[in-house]
């Protein structure tokens, strides 16, 4: 009985990795058997080798650090502004009337369309990339914070008021926790936009970062490094999402959608 259950747990733990492992194996086989030319796709082993070399020389970490710095800085600023403005407009009708239309208008400009302008403004400096990330991250956080606050049950707010909660306590005890699930949705969207923006902006004009590493490798036909760059983006994206999900599970333990099973 218990052995069966343990086996069950093992299968359940391994199951999600079955397809990726099979794909990896198939990829290696396809290259080894020369179904696929290494001029189109390097084998996983070659990518692994390139990873090892770059990691040993320290180059890899330098690029990852540069990209992560941009991502984190842009996210903190963009999400911070989005959250603050979402709060302001969610809590004050007057602010919403004044600001929301303008924000929605700017939202309809695809932020990546601003790249030529950003290059002129900031050059190929870090500031330009961070600015683009800020733009990409701002809107999902803003929209979902605003929506979260607007959708807090008015009955709970009325109850809180009638039970003597002041403005600050009402916000901390009722409005913010009620808006939190929606804010998390915004944060997870924002993380996706964060990497996307970074990928695009780093391939256009940079002197370091993962995007630069990949573009530079293309010039020398180092396909293994190009693939490595793509994989690092995937890993970093997954990592950010996992952190957000863990945070979500911790803070939303009360929520029927998140109970520990």
């Amino acid at each position, binding site marked *: 009985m218990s052995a069966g259950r343990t086996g069950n747990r093992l299968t359940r733990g391994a199951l999600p990795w079955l397809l990726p492992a099979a794909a990896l194996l198939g990829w290696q086989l396809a290259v080894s058997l020369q179904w696929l030319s290494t001029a189109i796709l390097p084998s996983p082993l070659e990518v692994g080798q390139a990873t090892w070399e770059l990691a040993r020389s320290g180059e890899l970490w330098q690029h990852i650090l540069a990209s992560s710095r941009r991502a984190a800085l842009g996210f903190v600023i963009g999400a911070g502004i989005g959250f603050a403005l979402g709060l302001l407009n969610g809590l004050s009708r007057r602010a919403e009337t004044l600001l929301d239309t303008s924000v929605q208008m700017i939202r309809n400009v695809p932020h990546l369309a601003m790249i030529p302008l950003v290059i002129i403004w900031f050059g190929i400096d870090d500031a330009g990339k961070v600015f683009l990330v800020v733009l990409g991250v701002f809107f999902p956080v803003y929209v979902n914070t605003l929506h979260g606050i607007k959708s807090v*049950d008015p*009955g*709970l707010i*009325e*109850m*809180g*008021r*009638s*039970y*003597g*909660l002041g403005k600050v*306590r009402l916000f901390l*005890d*009722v409005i913010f*926790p*009620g808006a*939190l699930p929606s804010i998390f949705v915004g944060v997870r969207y924002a993380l996706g936009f964060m990497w996307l923006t970074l990928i695009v902006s780093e391939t256009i004009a940079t002197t370091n970062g993962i995007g630069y590493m990949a573009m530079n490798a293309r010039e020398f036909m180092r396909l293994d490094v190009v693939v490595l760059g793509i994989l690092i983006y995937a890993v970093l994206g997954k990592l950010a999402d996992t952190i957000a999900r863990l945070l979500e599970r911790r803070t*939303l*333990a*009360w*929520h*029927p959608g998140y109970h520990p099973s």
Partner: protein
Amino acid sequence: MPAQHSAPHPRAGAALSLRGIGKRYGGLSVLHELALDIAPGSFVAVIGRSGCGKSTLLRLIAGLERPDHGEIRIDGVPQRQLSGDVRVMFQDSRLLPWRRVIDNVRLGLPASAAAHAAEVLAQVGLAQRARDWPRVLSGGQKQRVALARALVHDPRLLLLDEPLGALDALTRIEMHRLIERLWLERGFTAVLVTHDVAEAVALADRVILLENGAPAMDLAIDLPRPRRRDAAFARLEQRILARLLGTEAAAPEPAQADAKVRKLA
């Protein structure tokens, strides 16, 4: 009047007085020139059909809304805002889903009140559910938590807005007993809004039937407590029901309705 128990609460019930209360929503007059006095420590049930204005009346007394006309006094003091002496139990429990049961009970209280909150939670029989999330509670348990949350403030006036409407019959009877016991122990004034005549007769000293925004019947319920559903109970219930249903059979002309009110006043 509530019986005095061994550990009487120092805060007695509040006296409530309403004069010339009027409230309109859009073009619709919900309450009109309503006057009402409620004695301290009494248990009053306000009944009526949907839309008769009974919930609006309760919201005005609670201070959740302001009347267009008239004045509400609690212990002779005009009520201007939400008062700490008044607590409301809502139709839905309105527990915060992100706070555990005990933290819902002590909402708005300092950390030092934790022991008191636990004590009141025990009084409604849910001490062992203190650390649970509200979502795992049944409807009746949720309303008991809501009752504890109201009573932890030692209100002098407790307003109950059809709090048992969504519960099954058995749970409802249990809740009647619980509410009655706590009311007897604590001596607050209670105003219950309900559309359930049996509930009104089971709990209240006085039943007020609201019709077209004004009291159409005002009946003292002089049965011993705890109330048993005997012949006297049934007679009172029947009388009120007949009055309620009678108005349905022949919808009264507005003039007729006014005449009834005047007779009462």
